[in-house]
């Protein structure tokens, strides 16, 4: 299938509990010291993973039960804070193809769209129910549809939502916006020249 078109995504889930998980936690700033995004996946949630390990607990991203998972399940305000695209880049390079959660930071959401990695919004209760289900059975297959705005798990279909613009961008394969934005460059010039601060007042 043409990788530009993003609609149905199927795979196993990985639950990550907690509200307001910021992008500094997804990828700490010291790993941004690079001119490429290569290798970021090795450092996803590095400090959180280490701190849990020291307390004898296992972070989802260190847990072999979730190896090979493609769908991340989070709670509210995921990806808040810094605008670093390194955060969704790290997750995508780790293997994540879509994120389901109660809510997402706008900048994180936009960065994910630009990478062709959809974020689907579900109710707080459904997000927790998905996390419970995947913890109970990490092999459970999740299937989501961006176009239909649904999530299927254990034979049941749940309602999800993706804003209309992002939905169209994924399903029509225009999430990489550069081409679209250059389609009518004359119009860009016209708008620019009509702006007093561009034309020199």
């Amino acid at each position, binding site marked *: 299938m043409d990788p530009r078109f993003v609609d149905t995504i199927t795979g196993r889930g990985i639950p990550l509990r*907690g*509200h*307001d998980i*910021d992008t*500094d*936690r997804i990828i*700490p*700033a*010291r790993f*941004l*010291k*690079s*001119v*490429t*995004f290569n290798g970021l996946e090795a450092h996803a949630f590095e*400090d959180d993973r*280490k701190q849990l390990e020291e307390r004898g607990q296992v972070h989802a991203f260190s847990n072999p039960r979730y190896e090979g998972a493609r769908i991340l399940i989070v709670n*509210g*305000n995921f990806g*808040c*804070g*810094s*605008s*670093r*695209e*390194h955060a*969704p880049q790290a997750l995508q390079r780790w293997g994540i193809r879509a994120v389901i959660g109660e*809510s997402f*930071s*706008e*900048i994180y959401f*936009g*960065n994910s769209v*630009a*990478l062709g990695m959809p974020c689907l919004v579900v109710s*707080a209760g459904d997000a927790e129910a998905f996390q419970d289900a995947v913890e109970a059975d990490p092999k459970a297959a999740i299937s989501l549809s961006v176009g239909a705005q649904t999530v299927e798990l254990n034979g049941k279909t749940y309602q999800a939502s993706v804003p*209309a*613009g*992002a939905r*169209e*961008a994924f399903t*029509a394969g*225009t999430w990489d*916006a*550069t081409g*679209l*934005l*250059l389609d*009518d*460059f004359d*119009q*860009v010039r016209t*708008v*620019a020249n009509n*702006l*007093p*601060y*561009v034309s*020199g*007042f």
Partner: protein
Amino acid sequence: MKQTLLQKVWDNHAVRTLSTGQTQLFIGLHLIHEVTSPQAFDMLRARGGTVAFPNRTFATVDHIVPTLNQRRPFLDVLAEEMMSALEQNCRQYGIPLYDIDNANQGIVHVIGPELGLTQPGMTIACGDSHTSTHGAFGAIAFGIGTSQVRDVLASQCLAMEPLKCRRITVNGQLRPGVYAKDVILDIIRRLGVKGGSGYAYEYGGDAFDRMTMEERMTVCNMSIEGAARVGYVNPDETTFRYLEGRAFAPQGSSFAKAREWWASLASDAGATYDDVVVMDAGAIEPTVTWGINPGQSVGVTENLPSPSDAPSEDRASVAEALEFMSFRGGMPIAGTKIDVAFIGSCTNGRISDLREAARLIKGQQVAKHVRALVVPGSQSVRKIAEQEGLDKIFTAAGFEWRGAGCSMCLAMNPDQLHGREICASSSNRNFKGRQGSPTGRTLLMSPAMVAAAAVAGEVVDVRTVLRTEEVHA
């Protein structure tokens, strides 16, 4: 029809409605730095693209620059590689760069306004979430990711979803010892760290009317910490006075025309908002964060919440924050011992911040156990401060006086917390690990409160210091 500034600026920059239903928005000013741009240039080259409007992008270096030894090549080879990449990219595409050896270098959100690049009525984008700072001028300014930096380089446009508008009116007068930083910390505390999602915040009311541009910048800067990607103040006489004579501001007869246009962009009386919040400036206290997000704060005379006091959906977050900070619910924030004091950042690294901090510490000494540093937001701020002798006041008190950059706000340079240190910080984020040590702890507060804490060695109510000062005067 009565319109908000947001609607007017949006409409002026809307190129067309895309097939996705999103708006193609022209970006009037694009600011770039060394951390989030190199990959964008690589993507652009990989597609054989070029920079559409090189004269509408400006570059500087701020995130990774050391503030002690700024000689090139930097000792940190990764930092040096990022510097070289930005220099090459700017040379290749003809983008003006204020490099480490340039008098205009500084934190991108400090130099944009200083140079007069930031103007009312613009759309402004930068690969940094604190781009909301520029909204202080009545611009629509927001942070973007690296792929979007590529989009702006290639087309000077972005594909955008519409924003709702929330008016936040703060009436009345701030009490002595209460600063712009406390206003925004209080707003975030009340509306929550996700309360602004989907909104632009329009700040107004007589508390904002009286604020200087630097104070407005401090408030707009932290809009994103309340999930509002955009925060702005309508342009007024204060805005125009600030801009007049700045290097990139319109000059001569153009300035009068610009001023007329800028004034016309302010929200119309009677414009409709998606939401309105009204607050009382007199009720705001000096505010300090105690947790791991900027909404977890209390007035300096208050005690920390317990998980059991919090609404059920916040209990786990409160418990997690208390555990990370090694704090107990019910304990007072005042008296919390600090290890480090940091004055700087795009939130509070401007000259007025340094003046107020210097005024408070003049003739005093930083507590023996505290490591204290002042990092000016730009080389220009540093120069003005030195002309005024502020550097001598700081160093005499035991502060380190550094070069300009982001420094310990995100600790991508050598300025970092160690281990479990607690830092009284004038920056914008208290996230776990934010200041360089994965277990380091951050207490956000105004620069005046940081200065007072540096001297006392613990969190104190700056108003008690101010009162002593009055007695001595």
